[in-house]
């Protein structure tokens, strides 16, 4: 277990930690304001990735444009899910 291996693991950990921080941050925002753990955050991740893949395959856009489009689509789905599902359940207990 040399220092070089530990440094490699640390770098990988920091990079993956920055990526996992994004869904953790979005779950914290929803938890703070709406007071329930948002268990579909992982599926918003999947939806964003698939929307970007779909944009790249079907429309042939470069990756950054596909990412922005998929962010817009997932934002609309998320706001729609709030409007249709979570607003009606607003007063209930946490589960």
């Amino acid at each position, binding site marked *: 277990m040399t220092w070089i291996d530990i440094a490699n693991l640390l770098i990988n950990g920091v990079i993956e*930690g920055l990526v*996992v*921080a994004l869904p953790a941050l979005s779950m914290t925002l929803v938890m703070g304001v709406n007071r329930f753990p948002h268990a579909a955050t992982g599926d918003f*991740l999947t939806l964003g990735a698939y929307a970007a893949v779909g944009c790249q395959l079907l429309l042939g856009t470069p990756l950054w444009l596909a990412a922005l489009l998929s962010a817009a689509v997932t934002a609309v789905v998320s706001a729609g899910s709030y409007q249709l*599902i979570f607003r009606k*359940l607003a007063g209930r207990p946490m589960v």
Partner: protein
Amino acid sequence: MLAAIGLGFLIRSLISFFAGHDQRTFDMPLVRAWNFGGIRILPTDLVIAGIALACLLVVFVLLYQTSFGRQLRAVADSADLARASGIRAKGLMLALWLLVGAVSAIGGVLLGMKAIVMPEMGWEFLIPAFAAMVLGGIGSPVGAVLGALLLCIAQELSVPLLGPSYKLVLSFAVLALVLLLRPAGILGRIQLVR
């Protein structure tokens, strides 16, 4: 909430209905890792980290410097007092959920760039995200980022001890430990007040 779990099942089923169960990848150019005498860094990984950092900075600036963020923090503190001081909840909530969707989508694209894209991908990262939130203190955004960094560093550092297939087990273990020893997390308090 259980409704969120149901929504997750719905989204996952719709995705695998339309796109099938095969794994897909993004179209990215093939690069070699830079080698600094043993320390290997992939340029793609650096781009991923940079974009994640930029996204986090944007969200934090939005939360702490703009009036939208101030209203959001007020509603998070106490919804009744916020309504009494004249903050309209409806547009605020809509904007919040739009932001949540956009941030999650960028996170998903970055994860897909790092690995493959398959329907179970998000479900696998839900528990580490939740453990990061609990570790950093529920209701504290800075705590969530700190918790995510600490959790993933701990996950990677446990690989020589436990083997690469047990990385996910560590996030469960950390979740259990935090809930047993210090339920408030690092930067949180027992109630949901920032």
